[in-house]
């Protein structure tokens, strides 16, 4: 556009993808975790359909172990947007005996989300689930398509993916299949943060430096919380930290930081040399951790 200061090819691409989803699918849903990537998705969806409202609901798969700040933020945002929010709880799947809670030092509810997600897709007959995954996050994600077809069991068949040429997105599916859609596939962590800064998008307070009770294990900073298993010899410390990525409390590590506003966060990301998923405890389990979870239907 002329008389705009800045044309962002990534933003134009994401808006295009959102419009393709609305046009090609009958029951799309935006998977909302309360993290910065899904908040960015919401802004892009607003831009895609303005002056109309976002033409699909948001859904949160709640592990029950979220940071309270994220939940408060989620509820406020949904109210402002005037869109429907669907919440489905991992706790319900545990109570019904569908999944078994992990135990021990590295226990987390992160991988248990898959069952609840697949159940919700079936319950609402969603044919497209929009998520904030990015290809730069992790090696297996780097091969993911923008429209990624999943079978009845939510499985990802990485050897049989549809080629994606030019801008053309093929959303043709059979009954029972669904498509995972990733509008910000081509964004990097820094692209997301720069966009949040430029657009002045509000994000949960835990992304900024704050004083928190933590403990150290395997070189990572863990939150001291009822949801996180902690051994007796792991000493509780109080430090200035912030989160670079926000998952469930049991799988998200903090970084030491004094970055208390968006400009200093962007600067910190620019200077930093640890990748974002380096702070995800779930990926440290094994080299192929992400790929295995994806084959089982994880986002």
């Amino acid at each position: 556009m002329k008389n705009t200061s800045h044309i962002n090819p990534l933003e134009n691409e994401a808006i295009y993808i959102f419009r393709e989803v609305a046009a090609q699918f009958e029951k799309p849903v935006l998977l909302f975790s309360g993290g910065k990537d899904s908040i960015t998705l919401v802004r892009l969806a607003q831009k895609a359909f303005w002056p109309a409202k976002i033409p699909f609901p948001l859904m949160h798969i709640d592990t029950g172990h979220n940071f309270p700040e994220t939940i408060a933020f989620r509820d406020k945002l949904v109210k402002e947007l005037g869109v429907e929010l669907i919440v489905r709880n991992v706790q319900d799947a545990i109570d019904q005996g569908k999944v078994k809670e992990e135990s021990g030092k590295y226990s987390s509810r992160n991988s248990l989300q898959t069952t609840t997600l697949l159940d919700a897709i079936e319950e609402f007959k969603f044919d497209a689930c929009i998520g904030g995954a990015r290809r730069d996050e992790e090696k297996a994600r780097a091969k993911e398509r923008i429209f990624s077809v999943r079978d009845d069991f939510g499985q990802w068949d990485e050897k049989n993916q549809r080629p994606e040429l030019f801008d053309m997105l093929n959303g043709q599916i059979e009954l029972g299949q669904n498509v995972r859609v990733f509008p910000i596939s081509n964004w990097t962590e820094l692209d997301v943060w720069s966009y949040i800064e430029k657009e002045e998008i509000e994000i949960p307070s835990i992304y900024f430096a704050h004083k928190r009770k933590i403990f150290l294990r395997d070189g990572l900073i863990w939150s001291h919380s009822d949801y996180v298993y902690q051994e007796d010899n792991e000493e509780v410390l109080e430090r200035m930290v912030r989160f670079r990525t926000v998952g469930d409390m049991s799988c998200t590590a903090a970084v030491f930081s004094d970055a208390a506003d968006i400009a200093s966060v962007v600067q910190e990301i620019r200077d930093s040399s640890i990748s974002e998923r380096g702070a995800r405890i779930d990926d440290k389990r094994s080299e192929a951790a992400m790929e295995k979870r994806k084959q089982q239907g994880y986002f």
Partner: protein
Amino acid sequence: MEVLKIATAGSVDDGKSTLIGRILYDTKSLTSDKLEAIEKTSKQKGYDYLDFSLATDGLVAEREQGITIDVAHIYFSTAKKSYIIADTPGHVEYTRNMVTGASTSQAAIILIDARKGVIEQTNRHFFINNLLRVKDVVVAINKMDLVDFSEERYNEIKADFSELMGKRDYQDQNITFIPVSALKGDNVVNRSENTNWYKGQTLLEHLEDLDMAAVSNIGTPRFPVQYVIRPKTEDFHDFRGFAGKVYGGELSVGDEVVALPSQTKSKIKEIYFYDKKYQTASRRSSVTITLEDEINVSRGDMLVKVGDLPSIDKQFTATISWMDSEKLKAGNKYMVQHGVNKVLAKVDAIHHKINPDYSGIDKEVSALGMNDIAEVSFKLNKPIFFDAFKKHRTNGSFILIDTKSNSTVGAGFILAP
């Protein structure tokens, strides 16, 4: 920030993953945890150098077989540009991945092993990038360290490659030769001490200097309507906005336009990007357009400027890159997805196939198999609005969808009605 998409092509063991890893390493784009993982794995395997290919080879199967089997995307940025590299395999079976990678790229890097020189697969790598009209091609002559950084060897390969260039259809392609060693880092990001005879730029210097406007395919403006926005709220009671992306050129408020297929004329009343109005929608911007008159426009329709119509036809001939194990035969029916428009199509005739070594064509052809490239005519059940691929990269391309499996089974580049 400008974004440059780059496709890569090379045969197995030409060192493509190593080259990408080297770029990431020398631009300090590898984060400390990734570098640590590379150091750890290289040591475990007993290498006496860092195996940068580990930075990109993602899938378990790839690690087991030590090859890249699908398109992976790698991101890095400098102060000047953001880069997206599509790491596409050079295996002869995987033409489809190369076509896919090249379709969204403005630049390509073709790797040649300096010891082996131009081989049959180099023909294919060059031909595909030329067919897809990738504007800027760098021929990286790799493993120069293994031929003692010989200028003579470099010139030999350059001469061999230049012979291929004579045969190309797309003559406006910029081609640059660079002698590199991805493993040792010569002329990738930093200039080499070992090639004093080479006066050109390093690979990264070349990419940094590319002018984005010059490597983009600019044609006439085409506006395929993706979605009609009708808010039906009190504030926007009569709002009817046509949402889409502008391809080829610009559109401005006041432009006289024709809606296709109805051929109804109107004028552009407003251009919105989100909640702000603009005078002009630039190329590749995702905007919402309103018109002066209430005319019937829906998804799949196209707005173009008066006097600048594309071909409107129920048949066309195209170069097809076939990507499926089920064969394409005359009489078969497919769904053609042309931009956001979908129509049913029937294969009218297969005219000829391009020989796998690009030495010529084969006219005796009854079916196309995986990785074949051929000239094919189609008949459609209703007209589409297209340009020749050489005039308009977006409006001249389409994909073929199998109506039973719903898979994308081919890509096409329109030659003529």
